[in-house]
């Protein structure tokens, strides 16, 4: 992969694009934006693969962080551009868009099944971190939860998921 082989990139795409797109789509909530972000993510992987250090973690962890950062950056730049807009119609349309997606959002059957065994407060943290584009700090700030509590909830959730997902 580090030899800039496009076949290796294609392998990565075939293997991970679904997982990454699932995260990206839930964060940006618009198909054409998600498509764009996914392409940007793989172009970035293609460009920066040499900086990936296998001794510091799994390849997927590195790729997922690239994808999450890219998706969050995109969402924030859109938020800013939206704030600048003055027409009422745009605001209405965008609100409808957002609510539509949030209804759908995490209700996906596969993810719901996995997360259903988690206590409500833990599921809340996992959803926000992985599917809503929040960092632990942002979640703590926005929802007035101490950062230590967020960390603990995530930690407990990950231990529960380990069992649910059969990781040994």
């Amino acid at each position, binding site marked *: 992969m580090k030899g800039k082989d*496009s076949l290796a990139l294609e392998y990565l795409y075939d293997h991970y694009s679904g997982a990454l797109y699932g995260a990206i789509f839930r964060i940006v909530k618009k198909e054409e934006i998600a498509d764009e972000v996914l392409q940007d993510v793989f172009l970035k992987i293609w460009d920066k693969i040499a900086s990936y250090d296998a001794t510091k973690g*799994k390849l997927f962890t590195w790729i997922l962080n690239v994808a999450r950062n890219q998706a969050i950056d995109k969402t924030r730049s859109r938020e800013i551009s939206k704030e600048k807009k003055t027409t009422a119609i745009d605001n209405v349309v965008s609100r409808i868009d957002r609510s539509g997606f949030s209804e759908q959002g995490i209700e996906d059957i596969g993810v719901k099944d996995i997360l259903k065994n988690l206590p409500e407060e833990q599921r809340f943290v996992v959803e926000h971190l992985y599917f809503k584009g929040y960092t632990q*700090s942002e979640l703590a700030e926005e929802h007035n939860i101490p950062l230590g509590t967020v960390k603990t909830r995530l930690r407990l959730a990950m231990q529960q998921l380990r069992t649910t997902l059969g990781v040994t």
Partner: protein
Amino acid sequence: MNIHEYISSGILEAYMLGELSEQERAEVEKNLAQYPELREELALLEETQERLLMEASIAPKASVKAALFAKIEAAPKAEAKVVPLTPTQPAASVWKFAAAASITLALISSYLAYDYWSKWKRTENNLAELIAQNQQVAQDYNRVNQRLDKLEDDLKITDDPSFKRVILNGTPNAPQAMASVYWKESSKEVYLSLQSLKQLSKENQYQLWAIIDGKPVDAGVFDGDFAGLLKMKDIGSGAAAFAVTVEPRGGKASPTLETMQVVGNVVKG
């Protein structure tokens, strides 16, 4: 360091999510390198995270992949550009080999062509030579055969008792000269054989005369360079002697006695 407390603090999750500062990150990596338990715990977290995201997969449209790889193809990296150059190397060497082979082939075939040409030429010369030799042998054979036939014919005459042999000896004009006449009176045939006569000029010829009843009778002209017997003109019966004179080419009606070369009387009986 209390490993359990360190793990419980949730710092590995934060590390995994990329939420640490550079300083915190460096410290975690130092601890990971030092403690296998930490590496094991991180590996489990990463595996859990990956499975969770895999479960939450949404397949992007195929057009996204096509557009992505079209972009990558359109803007290949400098390293990637080196790759297409390698396949040309074997192709070039194939052409090189083909060219070398065709030149070798051309050299071989032109050598063979020359070799065959010279062999053919040599064979042709040999054949011409053999044909010429064959013709020569055939000619020689014919000549010998003809000569043999002639000799056999001559022999019949000289062996035939009915032919009288008349020896003509040299006159004072040509004391070394000598010739013979075979004459068959019944059939009037006359043959001449030369033992020794000098070469004449082209203007002159020898002329044979038969003396019948005291008068010279023309028996024909001849050149002095034949072998064997030469048939002469028929003459009437009662020849008493034969003589040869030198006359202008074509002969004369009457002999020039001063030029008589040989003369011989017919022996009676």
